[in-house]
């Protein structure tokens, strides 16, 4: 597709379960970002990939959160032992330049009951 695609659009899970969120960036974009947006807040940085490697994972809140991008394209954000506080919209963005012009997907809304 032409834009950044995120699946699922919505995910409801129970506390303690494992969740995977997928991001398919714009073709050719080498940089990929994950952000988390809580209700009424601005997006908060989680992790940034340049190619296959995580260039900056300083925003991951704890070791329950992990992200991969094995072939330098699709990325998966993995959350183990989900907690109610993990409920948020998880945004993915990709970029071809290093000037902050990011192209965002529509996000995955995660609800942990």
């Amino acid at each position, binding site marked *: 597709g032409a834009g950044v695609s995120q699946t699922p659009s919505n995910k409801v899970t129970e506390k303690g379960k494992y969740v995977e969120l997928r991001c398919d960036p714009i073709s050719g974009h080498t940089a990929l970002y994950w952000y988390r947006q809580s209700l009424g*807040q*601005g997006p908060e940085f989680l992790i940034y990939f340049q190619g296959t490697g995580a260039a900056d994972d300083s*925003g991951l809140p704890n070791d329950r959160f992990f992200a991969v991008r094995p072939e330098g394209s699709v990325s998966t954000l993995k959350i183990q032992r989900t907690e109610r506080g993990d409920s948020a919209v998880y*945004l993915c963005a990709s970029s071809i330049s290093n*000037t*902050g*012009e990011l192209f965002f997907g*529509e996000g995955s809304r995660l609800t942990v009951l």
Partner: protein
Amino acid sequence: AQTVTQSQPEMSVQEAETVTLSCTYDTSESDYYLFWYKQPPSRQMILVIRQEAYKQQNATENRFSVNFQKAAKSFSLKISDSQLGDAAMYFCAYWPNFGNEKLTFGTGTRLTIIP
């Protein structure tokens, strides 16, 4: 660390009128980029306008323009001839030109357009 502050949680404007959204930021860098992003109810963040810190001229994109005051670390967005489709959350964001390649966002301003 860089911080971005948007002190107006909500703003409203009459259709066809002009509105200005405020943003201040804090950085010790001299070279950086500033952005305004728009997030409609569909959740997809869209770039509205970009300003490079080393350029003194204020950026303009059709009905959208900025007032960039580098010394004051202020970066406001002016929307002229407001349209119903402008209703959205607006986020100010900072990007350092060297290293630490990630956007830092403010908390956003919800803009309502009154028909």
